[in-house]
């Protein structure tokens, strides 16, 4: 055996070694119980968050200080992740993913018990909190969102008024007419797609449920063709297609700029964007910074009515959960409870409270006046929808298909809308059959 062979063998062995990693044993089932005596809970906990801005400007520290008034022995540290989904995905392979974290989109619902400690049973938690079924596996709840979000159009009230429209449009056709009036009578860009930033386009999936005011909309995605004639997603996608096709969107979507779009909307250079309630506070801040009136930022529901009433869905933001490997589950649980119930985080963000008995925030006053019906989608089929979505590579929560849709509408891609949606529908329903159930 000469030296070359030995070398080759050593290298070969080194290559094979790591091939056996990656399948660590899994623990299953643990509870994070709420502490009985707040003054006795102790430990250092790490809280992961996506709010880089709040960590940098010290807001999170102020929350922690407030938290320590009730729980003096718990030390809270924050880790802000800029690219949360990508970074957390890798950390989920280890045991080190903080004590409190936001449930990443990549984790399958059925795997929740392997990664997170339960916060209690659904029967008990759903009396007090909204959105419990979004994280419920086998009757146990694994996460809680500190605020609720609602999709809708952020719009500049002044611009819409200048175009002569004071009432919210009630049908997609009326909405298009409104945008056309803006184009004709003002200098504003009627609609901004934020094509380049990608994720704003994915929020068009949240039209699901509001068009027909149907709490079972998610279940329908799992069982039928989401792009069937008259279905929610088709109505939404057709509206987006028409907006772009009629030249009512920005001239060059491929170089659009999300950060710039905020002050531009505030100043009235952009009239409308489909986003969500979470964006209101950011756009108002942008207005203050730009020195224009923050009250010009308005919020309106999707242009569709059932029995003469608008309808809007309320869903959770990221859900906070306790790491199953945490050494201080009680302290972590205490943080989640306090942050959800008492921190005032929802009010600071002009968001919807996760508590069932809390009133709606002031920014949604126009919604109350207009009698908009608010519904929560039943998420029991949520895991299945996610599975079909990934398997079929359609990506209803990914930017690609809407980017293709916009390309199609502005002629950068050949084909018709009907064929495009039918293609998506076929991919979706074919996968449905393979996935079974």
């Amino acid at each position, binding site marked *: 055996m000469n030296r070359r062979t030995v070398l080759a063998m050593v290298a070969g062995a080194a290559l094979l070694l*790591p091939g056996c990693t*990656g399948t660590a044993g899994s623990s299953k089932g643990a509870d994070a119980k709420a502490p009985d005596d707040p003054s006795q809970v102790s430990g250092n906990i790490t809280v992961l968050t996506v709010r880089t801005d709040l960590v940098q400007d010290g807001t999170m520290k102020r929350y922690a200080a407030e938290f320590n008034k009730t729980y003096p022995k718990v030390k809270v540290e924050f880790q802000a992740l800029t690219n949360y989904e990508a970074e957390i995905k890798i950390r989920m392979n280890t045991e080190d993913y903080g004590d409190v974290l936001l449930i990443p989109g990549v984790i399958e619902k059925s795997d929740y018990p392997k990664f997170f400690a339960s916060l209690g049973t659904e029967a008990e938690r759903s009396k007090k909190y909204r959105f419990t079924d979004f994280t419920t596996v086998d009757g146990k709840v694994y996460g809680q969102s500190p605020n609720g979000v609602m999709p809708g159009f952020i719009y500049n009230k002044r611009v819409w008024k200048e175009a002569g429209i004071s009432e919210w449009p009630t049908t997609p056709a009326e909405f298009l007419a409104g945008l056309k009036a803006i184009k004709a009578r003002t200098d504003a860009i009627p609609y901004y797609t934020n094509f380049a930033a*990608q994720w704003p386009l994915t929020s068009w999936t949240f039209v699901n449920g509001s068009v027909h005011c149907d709490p079972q909309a998610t279940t329908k995605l799992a069982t039928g063709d989401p792009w069937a004639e008259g279905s929610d997603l088709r109505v939404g996608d057709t509206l987006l297609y028409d907006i772009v096709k009629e030249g009512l969107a920005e001239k060059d979507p491929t170089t659009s700029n999300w950060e710039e779009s905020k002050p531009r909307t505030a100043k009235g250079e952009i009239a409308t964007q489909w986003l969500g309630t979470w964006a209101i506070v950011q756009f108002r801040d942008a207005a203050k910074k730009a020195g224009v009136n923050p009250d010009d930022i308005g919020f309106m529901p999707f242009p569709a009515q059932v029995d003469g009433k608008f309808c809007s869905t309320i869903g959770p933001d990221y859900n906070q959960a306790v790491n199953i490997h945490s050494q201080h589950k009680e302290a972590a649980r205490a943080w989640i409870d306090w942050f959800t119930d008492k921190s005032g985080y929802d009010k600071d963000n002009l968001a919807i409270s996760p508590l069932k008995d809390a009133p709606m925030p002031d920014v949604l006053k126009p919604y109350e006046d207009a009698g908009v019906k608010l519904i929560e989608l039943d998420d029991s089929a949520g895991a299945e929808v996610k599975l079909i979505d990934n398997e079929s*590579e359609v990506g209803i929560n990914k930017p*690609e298909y809407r980017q293709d849709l916009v390309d199609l509408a502005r002629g*950068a891609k050949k084909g018709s809308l009907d064929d495009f949606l039918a293609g998506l529908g076929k991919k979706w329903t074919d996968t449905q059959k393979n996935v079974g159930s």
Partner: protein
Amino acid sequence: MTDTTEKADFRAVAPALKSAAPRRAPRRARTWRLVTPWLFLLAPLALLITFTYAPIANMVAYSFTDWDGVSPELHYTGAENYEELFTREDLFQVFWVSGYYLAASAVQIVAALYFATVLSFNLRFRNFFKGVLFFPSLVNGVAIGFVFLYFFQDGGTLDTVLGLFGYDTDHAWLGTPFSANTSLAGVSIWRYLGMNFVLFLGAIQSIPGELYEASELDGANRWHQFRYIILPGIKPVLTLTVILSVSGSLSAFEIPYIMTGGATGTETFVIQTVKLAFQFNKTGLASAAAVVLLLIILLVTWVQRRLVPDDRVDLV
């Protein structure tokens, strides 16, 4: 390198050992002589194995599973991922996009060769021009992506500059697949030209100067010098550059990913792989795609080496 020199040493020492008494080269010294190169190699080898070969081995292993990237459970699925990869033609159509980058690398090599040749002769401000050409290679690729996003924006730098010359194109540079891919390939030329240029310049400058003088005496002009001295003189570097360019265009990623994210028909094979792994959580399939890309690049390189063998060139 180390291996051959050491072998030569060993051969020289061996006969001496046989005939003479072992006292002259004690066992300890001999062991040390054997071990020393390996001690030097220890650090680089450890790094190489940990950060290059181990991840590749892991990737190959994942390519035979249905792992989603996070789940603690993964199942062995045999060659299923490879089967899916080769039976779905949509996964391979993205290679057409590489054509743009391939064409761009041809332009890039010719331009780099031209600049390197021109700047290897005595020229006013040549060091300044060298700096100008090499500068983009020093800038971070992500930064370049963002800078050029502004450059191509509606009413951005490119439109302004063209406007100064009286052209009001009003063209959405990233708007159609053809225009977008051409623009992105253009950025890629700007980015990598400097690297090729420096390689060529180094090779050209290692050609002995008396060859030029001799050729001038024989009445050769600049073109003859280029054709019969420079080109054969830098042939090894040239083939290397071509191989790097081809594999680079097949695996183009950074610039299109940051600038368009693969929208409007600019999706390359690597972007598609990243999307499979990180958007659709098909880590197994994505690993298989990565392995296939590796094999394709190896194959292309091999074919290329067969077509253009790397002979030793003797100029003198």
